[in-house]
Structures are given as structure tokens and as C-alpha cells.
């Protein structure tokens, strides 16, 4: 029974990692850009939520609704003004600019909020749990996982059922031809990053309410997100969810054996998948 419990906790944790990863997967799928500041943007959003909750006294979920358009605007502006300048055949500029951005966000947060651990309070929900058969499941972790599934479904709908999604796919396949059809790639890219920041805000809500966070934890979130994307296979949102779950389960299993092995077990699972299936479990796009 103990193992079953551990695995269920791992799957739910995987939902959080899938939320971290979905935005990364979206941006990479459309413009082949890996945003090394992705983890720090999640932490930035978590601090934005913290400010809204503590300064305005908002409910965290209402605060997330307020933060969504703000983060969308930040993402749109970041892509349109900065990152679009770096897109091209050379992989160096986007990598180094987003790496610089990661360092800047991290240290700006350290300057503004100090290195103290924070948490976004959600009141009674924090400790609430549901009894499902023999195991008890935290309400927030369950809600996190369901949100991850919702985000994946939503992204798939946008990608494959809307005009915007068609423009995303067209630009991703052939930027020049899409341009001839009247699609402005720079705006499509900005919209995609804006959308990724919406997902980031949702991820930040669950990161911030689940456990303590501090300004320096962004890079580790980036690594988990990246591992989930690679395990799932490039371009597949459901694969990303599966990747998140694999990392989550590996981490909780590792922690059950020895608490010091939690993070290590996740990394080893990733390396194992990479060794056996270098293109991930469900590859859709060609790199």
C-alpha cells in the first residue's frame, strides 16, 4: 500500500512538472527556441502572485486571474522586443540572451525580495485531502494534476482547432511561406510566448501554494521542465505530461528509498530514457 501511495504522489507531482514544461514545449515547438529563463519566469510569476495576495489581500486564485494578462503582456513584450532579435540559424544568441535574462531575473528578485523562502497561503485548502479508496490524496496536488491535464487539452485545442493554432503550425513548418500567406511571424512568436507565460502563471500558482519558494529555485524548475519535454518527445503535449509524470514518480520513489536521492533519481530516469530513446517516448516533431 505504501508503494501505491508513493506512486500516486509521484504522478500528482508529475502534474506540476508538466505545468512547468508545457510552456517550454509550446515555445520550442513553434520557434525552436529554448528559453533558459523559463524557470526564473515561473518564480517571477510566483512572486507576482505573492504580491497580489499579500498586498491586495486577494484570494490566490483571483490573484492568478489578475496575473494572467500581466504575464501575457510580459511574455509578448519580451518576445517581440528582445527574443525575436535573436532568432535565426545561429543557436548562440537565443541561448546566451535567455541565460543572461535568467541571471537578471534571479538577482532582481533577490534584490527585491531577499533570499527568504516564501509561500502563497491558500488557507484550509493547504492541508485538505480526499480519501480515494485506500489512499489519501491532497486536494491541491490533485487540483494541480487536473489543471495540468486541462492545460494540455487546452493547448492541443488551440494548436489543432483554431486559426491561431494553424498559424502557429504554419510558421513552425515554414516561416517564409507562412509569411507569404500574410502571417506575421514576429507577432505569432510574441503571441506564443505570451501564451506560454499564461501557462507559466498557472504553474506558478501551484508552485507557490504547494511549498516554499525563493528567488534561486528557477534553474532547477527549468531542468525538470526540460527533462519532461525531452522524455515526452519534442512537439507532443501529451508526451510532455507523460514526461512530467515519469520525473515525478522517479523522484518520489527515490525519496522513499532515501530522501537525499529524490532529485538524483529524477535525473537518472531522464538519462536512462535518453540512452534508450534519444528522441523521447512520443516524438512528433523533428528537431
Amino acid at each position: 500500500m505504501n508503494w501505491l501511495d508513493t506512486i500516486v504522489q509521484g504522478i500528482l507531482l508529475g502534474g506540476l512538472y508538466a505545468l512547468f514544461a508545457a510552456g517550454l514545449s509550446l515555445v520550442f515547438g513553434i520557434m525552436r527556441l529554448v528559453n533558459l529563463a523559463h524557470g526564473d519566469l515561473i518564480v517571477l510569476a510566483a512572486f507576482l502572485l505573492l504580491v497580489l495576495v499579500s498586498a491586495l489581500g486577494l484570494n490566490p486564485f483571483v490573484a492568478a486571474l489578475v496575473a494572467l494578462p500581466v504575464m501575457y503582456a510580459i511574455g509578448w513584450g519580451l518576445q517581440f522586443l528582445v527574443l525575436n532579435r535573436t532568432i535565426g540559424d545561429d543557436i548562440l544568441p537565443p541561448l546566451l540572451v535567455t541565460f543572461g535574462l535568467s541571471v537578471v531575473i534571479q538577482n532582481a528578485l533577490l534584490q527585491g525580495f531577499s533570499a527568504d523562502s516564501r509561500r502563497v497561503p491558500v488557507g484550509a485548502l493547504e492541508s485538505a485531502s480526499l480519501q480515494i479508496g485506500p489512499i489519501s490524496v491532497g486536494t491541491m496536488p490533485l487540483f494541480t494534476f487536473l489543471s495540468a491535464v486541462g492545460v494540455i487539452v487546452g493547448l492541443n485545442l488551440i494548436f489543432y482547432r483554431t486559426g491561431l493554432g494553424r498559424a502557429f503550425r504554419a510558421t513552425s513548418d515554414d516561416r517564409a511561406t507562412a509569411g507569404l500567406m500574410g502571417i506575421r511571424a514576429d507577432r505569432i512568436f510574441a503571441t506564443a510566448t505570451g501564451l506560454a507565460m499564461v501557462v507559466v502563471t498557472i504553474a506558478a500558482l501551484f508552485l507557490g501554494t504547494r511549498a516554499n519558494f525563493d528567488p534561486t529555485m528557477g534553474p532547477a524548475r527549468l531542468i525538470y521542465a526540460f527533462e519532461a519535454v525531452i522524455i515526452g518527445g519534442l512537439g507532443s503535449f501529451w508526451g510532455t505530461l507523460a514526461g512530467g509524470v515519469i520525473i515525478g514518480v522517479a523522484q518520489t520513489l527515490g525519496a522513499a528509498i532515501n530522501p537525499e536521492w529524490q532529485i538524483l533519481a529524477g535525473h537518472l530516469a531522464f538519462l536512462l530514457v535518453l540512452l534508450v530513446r534519444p528522441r523521447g517516448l512520443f516524438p512528433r516533431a523533428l528537431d
Partner: protein
Amino acid sequence: MTHETLSSSSSQAPAAASAWTVTTRNRASSVAALLIVAVLLAGIAAPLFASRSVLQDLFFILTMLTLAQCWNLLAGYAGLVSVGQQAFVGFGAYVMAASVALGGFDPVVAILFGGLAAMLLSVPTALFVFRLHGAYFAIGTWVIAEVVRLLLAQWKALGGGTGTSLPTGVARELPGVRLVADWFGVRPAQAADMVYYWLALLLACAAIGFAYRLLRSKQGLGLAAVRDNGQAARAVGIDPNRIRFAVYLAAAFVTGLAGALIYLQKARISPDAAFSVTDWTAYVIFIVVIGGIGTIEGPIIGVVVFFILRNLFADYGSWYLLVLGLLGIAIMLFAPRGLWGLFTERTGIQLFPVRRILAGGPLTKTIKGGPHG
């Protein structure tokens, strides 16, 4: 070594000139060569008149320069943008610490062990990360560094997660410390600083010399060809992965040596410090980008700018990294060749000329219809 002569086929070349010469050297670089020798001599003599704190600053600059040259070779020439070089700094440092503290080896031998161990580590690492490309390579190297850090944090004999100090007096066991202390009449602690400094100088010069030799060799030409146009390079028979693998190994070796030397001097090691992505990768990336990526001069300029900024902002905590990050972004966006690139664009001066220049031959304008007409 300095001039290669290409014999041109007679059907293409006018009779007036039967040969072009490909040269890498110009007048400025010959003057620069003298300048470099002078700086080097001053560098060797520095401990005779510099204070201990200056020597320690120079040690820091030289070791950062070594790391920067290695990263520059990877990212600027081999197209391998690694964010995980701290794996080799930390592993080299840990193997050095184990050799000294547990194995009782001579410190200089321990440094060599550190470098060799880092190179050995880079072989399985390459097996994983060479399956990834571009940005995925970058984060893949980072994951490996994290794995190595977490594994070494389990090594209880070296203090586990909290780390350990090297045995006291290890500095005095460095070969030559007693000799230096006797010759110059200084206390052993100062003599040790002098020896550390000379080792760092030797390592930095070796790293620069290695990069320079490599880039002027046939393999270096292949590297540049792969970087500029991978497909065309393959078409003329260059195997990009073999060259990249060799560069990756060499960079790991030198990075491991630097890590071992740095932690021998610090005499205290912990996994979080030895595998710090900020100290050993972020700083190094900014040094190379600000100075000028893809040049040997760039990291030298970059490390000087880095050191000046560090001293200016030392009291402002996170502002320092904030400014460094913004500067790095601005340079990448608006002057991607860095400070040295800006300088050399205007003046054409190269201190370490590695670009091949076609000179002589039928370049005179009077010949019409020649191959360049």
C-alpha cells in the same frame, strides 16, 4: 608554421604570379607578439614585487581566464554551448581533494589527477550529451553536472553535502614552496601564494597556447569549417563529431586542472561551491561574451572587464550579477562579436591571428580578367 604556400594550378593563374601565399600574420600581430612576450615576462616576475592580495587577485583572474578559454573553444569554435562546465571544475577539484586528503599524494600530482579524472568523466558525458543538439545540448550538460554534484554530495569521506577542508599545511608541501621561501626570504604562506600564482600563469598560458595552436592547425581549420557551414565541411570529408568530441575532451581536461588548482588554493571544498553554475559557468559565459566570443583575445579582455566590474560592485550584492547579465544581453544583441570584435573591426588588429589571409599572387588591380578581377 607561419606561412603555408599554396601552389595554384596554372590554368587558373596568370603567368605573372604562379603562387599565392596564405598567411595568418600581419604587421600588427608581429608587434603584438613582442608585446605578448613582454607581458609574459612581467607576469613571471610579478610575484617579486606584487603584494599577496594582488597575487591572489591575479590568481583569480588567471584561473577564470583558463576556464573562459576552454568554454570559448567549445562554444565559440566547436558550436558546443555547454552550461555544464562546472561538472569538470567540481570533479577535478574533488579528485584532487581526495588524492591529497585520502591518498596522501603530492598536490601537483593531485592536480594532474584532477584534470585526468575530468577528462575521463567527459567520455561518458559526451555519450549522453552528443545525442542532443543546440539548446538541448546546453541543458543536457547542466543535468550531468547536477548528477555529478548530487553523487559527490553522498561521498561521506569528503564531508558529504557540507564538504571538507584540505589538511592544513598542504600548501607547504607544494614542490618548490620551501625553495621559494628560502630564495626570496619570505614566509611559507607567501611563498605558497607565489607558487599558486605561477601555476595559474602556466595553466592560463598553456590554455591560450593550446587554443592558438589548435586553431592554426588543420584540425582548427576543420573546426572553423564545421562552424561556418557544417554541410559543406562534411562534403569535403570533415567528420564534425570527431573534432567536436576531441575538443570536448581537451576542454574537460584543462577545466578539470583549473578546478583542481582553484580548490587547492581555496583549501576548502563543498559540492554546492565546486559545482556552482554561477561561479564556473555564468561568470565564464559573461567573460567570453563581453570580451568577444570566437576569438582568443576576447576572453582576455572579458576577464579584465569582469574583474573591474567585480571590484566596483563588490559591495552591492546581487546588483553585480544583475549588471553583468544586462551587459551580457546588450552585447549579445547589439555587438555579438563583443568588445574585442568592436575593436578589431575598426583597426584590423589581431593579437593571436588565426584567420587565414590570402596574400600576394595575382591580386594587383592591373590584371584584368584574373580570378579576382
